[in-house]
């Protein structure tokens, strides 16, 4: 009996290892192809001569990205929009979450419900009317228009996530500060926020990556090169079925880096944020 049990345990371990290898291959091969393509000269990329790895690796593809495309302009636009949205989400999220977590007022439960519903309503339902709204406000093709519409997913989510976290900050500290004459906002900024750094990091992470990765609104609400973000800019690399996949994969790899890097930094906290019921998948 004990022998069969340890035997089945070992078997399970081996099945696990085999599955792990298969999952790693499935996950990593597309990245391999992306990076390898970006490092090949054209003749190794196309046709039946195409190679499975670069025989003569070159950075010429990357050079073409920077010299012949408005890639840097797209990156700048994405950075402006994602940056502004992150700051605003943090600020609005903190203020609103504090009110919901600590103050008593009529309509509290209703507003909490509104936050969750707003977070769950998909952009695919909102982009048509938002297009009409932005047209009326003359905000089509502007940074402001995109920043504003990105609030629709980042602000409710930030407020919701921070509200949950503020609930877990012990009341006693705050009461002492209130008695000492620290006002409501004083306690928020001096007591609660310093204790909520992990939650603020998670909010910043989600607000930044969601804005950086967003495609639908950016595609519908923006046409000009001056405002275009990186996600929609990349699709322009496909010009009437004339592909240049080398530079495209190079640009794709570079524009995936910012969200990848913040993911690597924040991954410990991200899962916590996810269990609060977060994020598209």
């Amino acid at each position, binding site marked *: 009996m004990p022998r069969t049990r340890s035997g*089945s345990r070992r078997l*399970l371990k081996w099945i*696990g*290892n085999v*599955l792990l290898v298969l*999952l790693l291959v499935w*996950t990593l*091969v*597309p990245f391999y*192809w992306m990076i390898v393509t970006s490092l090949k000269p054209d003749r190794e*990329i*196309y046709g*039946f001569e195409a190679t*499975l790895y670069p025989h003569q690796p070159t950075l010429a593809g990357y050079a073409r990205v920077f010299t012949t495309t408005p890639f840097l302009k797209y990156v700048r636009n994405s950075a402006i929009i994602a940056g502004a949205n992150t700051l605003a989400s943090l600020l*609005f*999220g903190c*203020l609103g979450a504090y*009110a919901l977590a600590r*103050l008593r*007022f009529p309509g509290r439960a209703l*507003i909490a*419900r*509104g936050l*969750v*519903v*707003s977070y769950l*309503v*998909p*952009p*695919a*339902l*909102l*982009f*048509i*009317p938002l297009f*009409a*709204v932005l047209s009326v406000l003359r905000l089509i093709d502007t940074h402001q228009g995109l920043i504003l519409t990105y609030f*629709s997913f980042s602000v*409710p989510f930030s407020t919701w996530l921070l509200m*949950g976290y503020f609930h877990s900050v012990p009341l006693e500290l705050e*009461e002492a500060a*209130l*008695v000492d004459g620290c006002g*409501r906002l004083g306690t928020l900024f001096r007591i609660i926020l310093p204790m909520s750094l992990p939650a603020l990091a998670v909010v910043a992470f989600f607000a930044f990556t969601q804005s950086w990765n967003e*495609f639908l609104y950016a595609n*519908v609400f923006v046409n000009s090169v001056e405002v275009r973000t990186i996600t929609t800019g*990349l699709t322009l690399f496909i010009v009437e079925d004339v592909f240049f*996949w080398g530079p495209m994969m190079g640009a*794709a790899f570079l*524009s*995936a880096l910012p*969200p*990848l890097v913040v*993911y690597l930094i924040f991954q410990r906290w991200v*899962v916590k944020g*996810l269990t*609060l*019921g977060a994020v*598209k*998948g």
Partner: protein
Amino acid sequence: MALSAGQPDALREELLVRAPATARRPRHSATLRQEAWLAYGLLTPTLLVIVFLVAYPFASAIYLSLQDKMVGAPGRFVALDNYLDLLRDEVFLRTAWNSVLYTAVAIALKFVLGLTMALVLDQERRVNNFFRTLLFVPWAVPVVIVALNWRWIFDDLSGLLNNFLITFHLTSDIISWLSDPRLAMGCVIAVVVWSGTPFYSMTFLAGLQAIPKELYEAAEIDGASVVQQFFFVTVPRLRTIFLTTVMLSTIWTATNLQFVLILTRGGPASRTEIFPHLAYTTALGARRLGMGAAVSLVFFPLLVVLIVVLTRRMLRQADE
């Protein structure tokens, strides 16, 4: 709150602890009113977002769907004509079937693969953290980049897949992955699964790690096999996480048009057309905003159920 230095410490402490309550009592309603105004002030930006960027657009989508509005032209009220036209449209009916198939298969595969991934990562192993980081990476990559990358993998002449199959003599013909009517939907789903699986494994793994090890030890002593332990200890403990994850993911998967837009544009012959993408092409390609809104709203009743149930769950979770 003036406390003179001469007071005994005990009294001072008692005053401090009870201070908020006793201080409030005499002007209860005044303080409350002040507190409410402060709350509304702090919530103003959030409320503006909810009202003007979510609630109003949503209501106006319903209103738009009852008009024959085109881009840049005023619309005429046509009641339910848009919806009735849709029901007679062959592309629409095909889209409805595609959307159900696409969502159901993608969710099922993500679930199975995600659970497998989570169970594998929950086993004891050296450098498991490193493997976890690698396996979750697709989650951090923008969907557009995922879709473009896979479109290149599926490329007829130079893509990795055909390249690989031909190099190793597994096929002699070129397979047109994305333009073959029998293969296109399968390819789109594969990409959706690749991109969405890590979300499942993350939440499942968090759930697995929260199960006390004693439960397994107890089951083991009672003679439960590994399979029995899985079905009688693991699954019941994860049921809530399973449900929440699947419902959230159903909303996001069913309404995501980026994969289809970049991989196939709904083709070949509408074989991969799904609701959000049809709404997109109707509203912006054909410039029929009213009809586009109607298409996007057709799948909304199903989403309402999910949204209501999820909202209730998330609020309950927040109260705990």
